């Protein structure tokens, strides 16, 4: 049965496309888009304005390739218009970045601000206790290592890509439930009337799905690192978080599959809606959203599977081992809870209607 499930899933072209080919294609597009960013451009020092005062200014001043100028709002606008600065930060209740054109430099400025939002509270605590912002700088590889090490800031997009890959595993979870439940598909009815134990069949399908995701991740990793030359900072941690992320994806799929009464297509739509909402709340579209959610609705951050995966991957990117461990724990807890709830729904043997 195990081998049959393996063969069956491998032959499912649609799932293979979305879970493997699509991330590879998207990764290739990312690579092509970023290949024009030369190291020379990144290494050039550039000027940035700051309007207002906060600890963020001190953070900026620690960054080697940025010259920070404290300005009034009028002066900042004037300098921006004349091209003397590539952008300026307006510090009020929140920090906003103003730029005139999009460029590598402005992307870096945006990235610095995003990072500050995500890790701000941690850094502020450290700062208030030690007064050493070097800790912040040293935790930001893209800043401290850009001139010498392998990791560069564009890598963050590839971590996001891996996060998305993990969530696609949800399709396998939905598929596994659909195939084993009589009220969800006619094939499920066929399995239910057979002499195979339904839960064993489901678990076998999930195990096969997990193995396939593991193989696919290895292929994706080899493609990104060997073919495209993307170098990731900690491969072991990356594999741990990614495989756990796939497990979370599959668990989420199983949960949606078990709870929803819609057909497979409808369930995949729910998965897409949940992951897109999760991605939004996890700050994939705008990091400030993540900052606000983390600070104002921390519970939402903790139960958002996309946030857990992206946090886990970012903790590798920023080499924050404590955060890595905490995220590994969250990912495991989420999966166990999701599987347990699903089991409560799936343990029934007969249905009111099919």
């Amino acid at each position: 049965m195990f081998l049959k499930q393996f063969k069956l899933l491998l032959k499912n072209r649609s799932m293979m496309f979305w879970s493997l080919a699509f991330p590879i294609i998207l990764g290739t597009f990312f690579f092509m888009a970023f290949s024009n960013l030369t190291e020379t451009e990144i290494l050039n020092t550039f000027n940035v304005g700051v309007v207002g005062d906060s600890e963020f200014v001190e953070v900026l001043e620690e960054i080697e390739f940025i010259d920070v100028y404290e300005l009034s709002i009028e002066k900042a606008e004037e300098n921006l218009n004349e091209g003397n600065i590539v952008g300026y930060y307006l510090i009020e209740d929140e920090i906003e970045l103003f730029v005139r054109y999009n460029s590598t430099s402005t992307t870096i400025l945006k990235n610095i601000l995003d990072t500050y939002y995500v890790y701000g509270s941690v850094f502020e605590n450290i700062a208030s206790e030690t007064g050493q912002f070097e800790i912040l700088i040293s935790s930001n590889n893209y800043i401290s290592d850009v001139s010498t090490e392998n990791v560069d800031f564009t890598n963050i997009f590839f971590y996001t890509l891996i996060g998305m890959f993990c969530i696609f595993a949800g399709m396998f979870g939905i598929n596994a439930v659909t195939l084993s439940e009589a009220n969800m598909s006619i094939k499920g009815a066929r399995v239910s009337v057979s002499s195979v134990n339904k839960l064993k069949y489901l678990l076998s399908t999930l195990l096969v799905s997990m193995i396939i995701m593991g193989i696919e991740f290895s292929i994706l990793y080899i493609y990104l690192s060997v073919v495209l030359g993307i170098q990731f900072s900690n491969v072991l941690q990356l594999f741990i978080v990614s495989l756990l992320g796939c497990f979370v994806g599959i668990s989420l799929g199983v949960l949606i599959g078990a709870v929803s009464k819609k057909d497979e297509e409808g369930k995949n739509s729910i998965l897409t809606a949940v992951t897109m909402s999760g991605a939004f709340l996890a700050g994939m579209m705008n990091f400030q959203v993540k900052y606000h959610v983390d600070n104002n609705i921390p519970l939402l951050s903790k139960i958002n599977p996309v946030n857990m995966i992206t946090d886990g991957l970012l903790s590798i990117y920023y080499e924050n081992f404590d955060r890595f461990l905490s995220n590994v724990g969250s990912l495991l807890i989420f999966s166990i809870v999701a599987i347990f709830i699903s089991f409560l729904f799936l343990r029934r043997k007969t249905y009111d209607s099919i």
Partner: protein
Amino acid sequence: MKEVIKVEKLTKSYKELKAVDELSFSVKEKEIFGLLGPNGSGKTTTINCLLSLLNYDSGEISIFGEEMSPTKYHIKEKIGVVFQEVAVFDELTVRENIDYFCSLYIKDKKKRFEYVNDAIELVELTGFVNFKPKQLSGGLLRRLNIACGIAHKPKLIFLDEPTVAVDPQSRNHILEGIKKLNDNGATIIYTSHYMEEVEFLCDNILIIDKGKVIAKGSKEELKKLVGISLKANFEIDKMSNILLNKVKQFKNIVDATYEDGELFVSFEKTNNLGDFINFLHDNKVKYTKVYSELPTLNDVFLELTGKELRD
């Protein structure tokens, strides 16, 4: 003959609607048992209750002498099911599909290989083993659906409307295949709203409507329930009301109607078609064609419910 299935007072409701209402019947070993009724009469619900797929309100179901439940795997391994809806994997070939579903029952590879070959032969899909389901016609797809349900050589087979939307040639293949399965010793429960199929295949028939038993017995027993022995229709260009009234009063005529140039006549139990033809000659009625047929299960249904099976 041993009873393979025994159902007593089975009742199943969907909210306010009683889909199956105190249904009782039994099926004997090696018989082909027909469950006949119009769409929505409760045939599929009954089958799904028997298979322990559906909860039911009350009643008792025993299969192979044991009360049926979802975890009775030793009973399930002796059952094969062909659902009304085609349930195959588009990504697998014909052979792979049959092998996949057979593997849910048969673990031994060698034995399974033989069983799959036998199933392919039975449904006459030998020339299509490497085809994917999307490359098959509707009839061939139905045959694949049947092969997937019976490849493990079950002793009891449920076939739920297996010929829906099938061309006549494939329908004949399917019906012949079902006969062969029965000849090989399988007990078959066959649901359909096609009375001709049920008449052709089944030893015993249960007619249901709105979840209730309307009649049960062999086809001969059921036909005895109808008060006619023969139906005939004559193509006649013109017929006056006076003559039609005369026809209605002719001996042993149960009913006579004239519509669109055709005279429909039903005879009572004594068949006197010859006398009636003479009567038409005597009255100088010219007819171009004449057809006659024995009463069908549809007539039984019509007699008992006042409506056609396919209404």
